C-alpha cells in the first residue's frame, strides 16, 4: 500500500464542551474529563457584515475551525487550497426549504437556496479570504472525515503545496433529526504541508487499510460517544494522538465498511 507523508502545522477544533484546540488540550490529552456542553458558534469575523448575517450554523462552524488552523499555522489563507468534507450540510436551511416546498405555492428564499449547496462553507471561506486556489467539498456519509483526509493528503503530495482540510457536521432539526440524529455541531480543521517546518506539530503517514485492523477509539467515554454520534468526530482519536506527542503512535480511523484509514504519527 502506498504511504502518503504530510505534516500538520495547524489544528482547529470546535464541538460540544470543546471551545478550541488550545482550551481542549487537557481533555484531548486525557488529563481532564470531557464535560459536554452545547457547541458555541460565533459569527465569522472574517465575513463582510451582510454575509455574516446570512451565515448559517454550518458556515459558522466550518469557518471557525478553518480560521483557527490557519492562525496557528501562520500561513496566508489567500493562497491555500482547501478540502471541505461534511456528511450533512446546513440542516436548518434544508428543513426550512423542504417545509416551504411542501406548501401549495412555494415562495423559496433565494438566500436559502444559495446556501443549500454542499459547498456553501467552502464558497464563503474563499470569499472571506479572497482565495482563487482550488477547493473541493466532499461527502462520504459516516466516512466523510476519512474521505476528506485521503483527498487532502493526496493533494498535498501531488501538488507539493499545503492544503487546509475542514471536516464539520451540523445537526438537522426535527423531523429530519429523527431520521439522522446528529446531537450537536462538531468541526475540526488540519493545515497539512508537504515538508516539515519549524512550525510543524507532527508528521502523519497515511495509508488505506483493507485488513481488519483494530479501530482506534477514545479513552474518555464522553468523547467516545461523541465519536460515534457525529461523522466529523471520527477524527477524535487522531486529535487525541496529536495532543499527546509520543515517539510513535498508530491510529486507525473509520472510513468505508471495508476500508479504514491508518495514520502513523511521528
Amino acid at each position, binding site marked *: 500500500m502506498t504511504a502518503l507523508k504530510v505534516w500538520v502545522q495547524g489544528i482547529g477544533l470546535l464541538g460540544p464542551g470543546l471551545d478550541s484546540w488550545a482550551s481542549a488540550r487537557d481533555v484531548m490529552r486525557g488529563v481532564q474529563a470531557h464535560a459536554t456542553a452545547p457547541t458555541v458558534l460565533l459569527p465569522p469575523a472574517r465575513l463582510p457584515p451582510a454575509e455574516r448575517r446570512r451565515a448559517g450554523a454550518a458556515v459558522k462552524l466550518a469557518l471557525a475551525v478553518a480560521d483557527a488552523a490557519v492562525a496557528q499555522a501562520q500561513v496566508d489563507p*489567500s493562497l491555500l487550497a482547501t478540502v471541505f468534507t461534511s456528511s450533512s450540510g446546513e440542516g436548518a436551511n434544508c428543513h426550512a426549504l423542504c417545509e416551504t416546498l411542501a406548501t401549495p405555492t412555494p415562495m423559496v428564499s433565494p438566500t436559502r437556496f*444559495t446556501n443549500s*449547496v454542499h459547498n456553501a462553507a467552502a464558497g464563503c471561506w474563499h470569499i472571506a479570504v479572497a482565495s482563487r486556489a*482550488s477547493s473541493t467539498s466532499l461527502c462520504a456519509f459516516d466516512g466523510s472525515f476519512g474521505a476528506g483526509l*485521503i483527498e487532502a493528503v*493526496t493533494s498535498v503530495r501531488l501538488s507539493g503545496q499545503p492544503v487546509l482540510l475542514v471536516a464539520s457536521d451540523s445537526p438537522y432539526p426535527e423531523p429530519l433529526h429523527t*431520521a439522522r440524529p446528529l446531537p450537536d455541531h462538531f468541526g475540526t480543521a488540519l493545515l497539512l504541508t508537504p515538508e516539515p517546518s519549524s512550525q510543524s506539530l507532527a508528521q502523519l503517514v497515511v495509508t488505506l487499510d483493507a485488513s481488519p485492523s483494530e479501530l482506534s477509539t477514545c479513552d474518555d467515554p464522553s468523547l467516545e460517544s461523541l465519536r460515534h454520534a457525529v461523522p466529523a468526530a471520527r477524527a477524535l482519536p487522531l486529535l487525541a494522538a496529536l495532543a499527546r506527542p509520543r515517539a510513535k503512535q498508530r491510529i486507525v480511523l473509520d472510513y468505508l465498511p471495508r476500508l479504514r484509514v491508518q495514520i502513523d504519527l511521528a
Partner: protein
Amino acid sequence: MTPLAITASTLTTALGAGRAATLAALQAQRSGLAPLRFENLPLATWTGEVEGVDAIALPDKLGAYDCRNNRLAWLGLQQDGFLDAVDAARRRWGAGRVGVFLGTSTSGLLQTERAYRRREPGGALPADFHYGPTQNTYSLADFVAHALGLSGPGWVVSTACSSSAKVFGNAARLIAAGLIDAAVVGGVDSLCLTTLYGFNSLELLSGDICRPWDGARDGLSIGEAAAFALVERESAAPQSWLLGIGESNDGHHMSTPHPEGAGAIAAMCAALADAGLSAADIDYINLHGTATPSNDTAEDRAVASVFGIGTPCSSTKGATGHTLGAAGGVEALIAMLAIENGLMPAGLNVQQRDAELHLNYLLDNNHAPVRRVLSNSFGFGGSNASLVFGGVA
C-alpha cells in the same frame, strides 16, 4: 499530468439513453428540452427530463436506495456495455483497487421533499423515508459502488455545477498516488423542487427554452442526467485520454460569477498547463454556457482572454438543459463524442446572437477532425473546473 486512459463511458440525458442516441441528437441538432411536465409543478419553464425514470425498478438488494436520482443512475449504468467494462476492470485490478468518485448537487433530495408533503399528524416524516441511502449527498456513490461490486475508496463531490468535472481530478490524483488503479467517475443529478423553485427565486430560470449566447437570453433550463466514465492506469485500447485538469475558485460571490471570469481563466490556464498544451492546441471548447446573462458574458470574456476569439466553441445546454451536478460529466462525454466523430456540436436555440459576445460560437454543426477539447464547468460558491480531453489517434 500523465494522460489517463478512459476505457468506457456512457451518458443518459433528455437526448436519450446512451452514446448513440446522444450522437444522433447532436448530429440532427435536436434539443431534448420541453415545457415542464415534472410533478405538474405550476412553473412556466422548460426542462430536460429523462424519459422513463419513474418506471425504473431497482433490484431488490438495492431497494433501500430507491429514489429518482438512483433510478436515473441505474438507467445510465445499463447503457453502452458500461457494466461489462467495469466488471472487466474489477477482475483486472481487484474490487478494492477501483474507486468511485461521483458528482451530484441534490442527490436524492426529491425523496425528502416528497416526505415533507406526507408528514404524520405530529409532524414526523413517514416511516418509509430513509435518509442515508436517498437524501444524503453520498447516496449516489454508495449506490453505484454497491451496484458495481466495487470496494475501493469513494466519495461524492458536491460543488454545485462543477461537481462531476472535479471527480476526474480525484481519480487522477488517487491513481497517481498509487492508492487505486482505476475508477468510475461521473455524475448524476435529477429534477427536484429545490432546484426548480430555487433557480426560479433567483430569477435565473428562463420562461422559454434556454438560449445560450443569444442577445435575449434570460436564464437556464434545468435538465437531469447520468454520465459515467471508467478511467484506468493503463489500457491497450482506450476510448480517449484525459490530458489535463484545472480547478480554481472565484472567491467573489456565492451565486454570481466574477465579472471578468478571473477564476474561470485560472481554471482554463491550469488545465492547459496540466496537459502541457497551449491554447492553440485546443480544437473545440465545450462552454459552461448556462444562458444566464451573467454567466455567458463572463465566460465569453474569460475564454477570449485565454484563447482569443477564433477557437470554435458552443454550449450544449440548449440540447440537454443544465444538468447541474451532472453537467461536468455530461459535457466530458460530449467532448469525447466530438473527438471520436469529428463533430463540433452547434449551440442550439439562438435566435439573435448576442453582439456583445465575441467568441467563435457555432450556430451549426462543424464537421472537422477534433484532436483535443477543453470543457468548462462552473458552479455556485465560485467553484470552477476545466478538463482537457484528447483522441487516441
